[in-house]
């Protein structure tokens, strides 16, 4: 109920209340954005833009108890916008550019690259599940889809990741995803 009051204060334009309310999610939002986008720079932009949009639109949030899932949904949508923007403006082979070259540990690069090769829907569930430790029902609320859909996406995504990593290690072409 206190959170609900904070949402209502934020809805009236109180930026401090919004900051206090959203602060506990900043780090999680950033991790999610890095998982979705593969680099720090875009992730920082996505988080900032998502938070500004959330602050601007918070008066439309009808159930303050859903603040977290609503916030994550805005972020995921922003990340997908950025991914699509890149696909429109960047040659396919350069779409994913890891910025962690200095830490070029094989496993780290492999998993990030394999993740980037997943389509948006599959990548989203994997990131929310393993970067955020969100439960299936929470992910379903963020994505506004049935739990069964989340489960099947997760199942397929993990199998694709597995095949992709195998291919990476064998030095071959990645699986057709």
């Amino acid at each position, binding site marked *: *109920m*206190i*959170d609900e*009051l*904070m949402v*209502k*204060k934020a*809805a*009236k*334009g*109180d*930026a*401090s*209340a*919004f900051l*206090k*309310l959203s602060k506990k999610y900043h780090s999680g939002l*950033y*991790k999610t954005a*890095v*998982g979705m986008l593969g680099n720090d720079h875009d992730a*920082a932009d996505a*988080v*900032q833009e998502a938070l*500004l*949009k959330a*602050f*601007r*639109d918070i*008066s*439309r*949030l*009808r*159930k303050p108890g*859903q603040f977290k*899932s*609503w916030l994550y*949904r*805005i972020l*995921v*949508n922003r990340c997908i*916008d950025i991914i699509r923007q890149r696909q429109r403006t960047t040659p396919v082979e350069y779409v994913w550019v890891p910025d962690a070259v200095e830490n070029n540990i094989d*496993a*780290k690069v492999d*998993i*990030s690259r394999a993740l980037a090769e997943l389509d*948006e829907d599959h990548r989203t569930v*994997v990131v929310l599940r*393993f*970067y*955020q430790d969100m439960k299936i029902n929470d992910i379903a609320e963020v*994505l*506004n*889809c049935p739990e069964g859909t989340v489960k099947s996406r997760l199942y397929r995504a*993990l*199998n694709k*990741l*597995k095949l992709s*990593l*195998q291919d990476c290690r064998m030095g071959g072409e990645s699986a057709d995803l």
Partner: protein
Amino acid sequence: MNPLTCKEVYELLTDFLLEELPPEKHNAVKNHLQYCENCRKECQQLNQVIKNLRQRAGEIEMPQSLEKQIEDSLLSSPKKSWKKIISLAAVSLFLLAASLGLWSEYFAVPEEKSYLASEEAESSDGNAAENFSALENGNIDKSGMAEEPPMEQGITIQEKKENVVNIKETGSSYTALDENHVPDASPSLNNIQVIEISEAEGGAAVSAGGEQAEIIINSINSARPADNKEAYRVTHHIKVKLKDGTEYSFGYDINSNVIVLNKEVEYPGPGLAKVIKEITR
């Protein structure tokens, strides 16, 4: 439980690795893996993927500079400036009216109304409004996800700017939030200084502690909006003081089991009536 087939195990492996299977199924998968080399190999590979994902997630840290940037951009966002302008205009109007001796109850109401009306006008333009309309019409946005979960129509609280407001018709009162003070968003037993319960008809306030305090806080924090027309008559006052100085005073109707704050009626989580009875008997 019958032994599982490889196909069944294959379908359960992810949940098995995430330890989200019921104990009976978890053990059945475990037993199968002990004698089936193919499934064991499959399990190890999936486990490696999950391990890599978690390890990668653990390595990501948000730069401190980003936290500062977020703070700066939010605090200087146009919404705030707009509010500030309106607030200043409202204050100026108030001072002008007061100095002219025109202040009255009648005049006080439109000031807050115009404030809210401006906000509606402001938030009804731009992308957000388009997305919201799409949601209302049952459309899905380009990513296949609606921007907001489908939310029920909520109850609007008109927060008062004074520190204490008496609600004459019910006899209840509350301490409203200080406009310049942001309280702890999630009160827990750790940040609570004292919880006091008193009967509306008079009598000394009694402090709640231990398990009773826990139940009261859980009940309040998990309260859900009730029917706006819910009839109530406040029988008790619950005052919660946080260590950061914030105070909340809720009205409680033990007969209807509803709590009231800012005239908003909410259904508390379980156990509140019982605890209040115990404390005040």
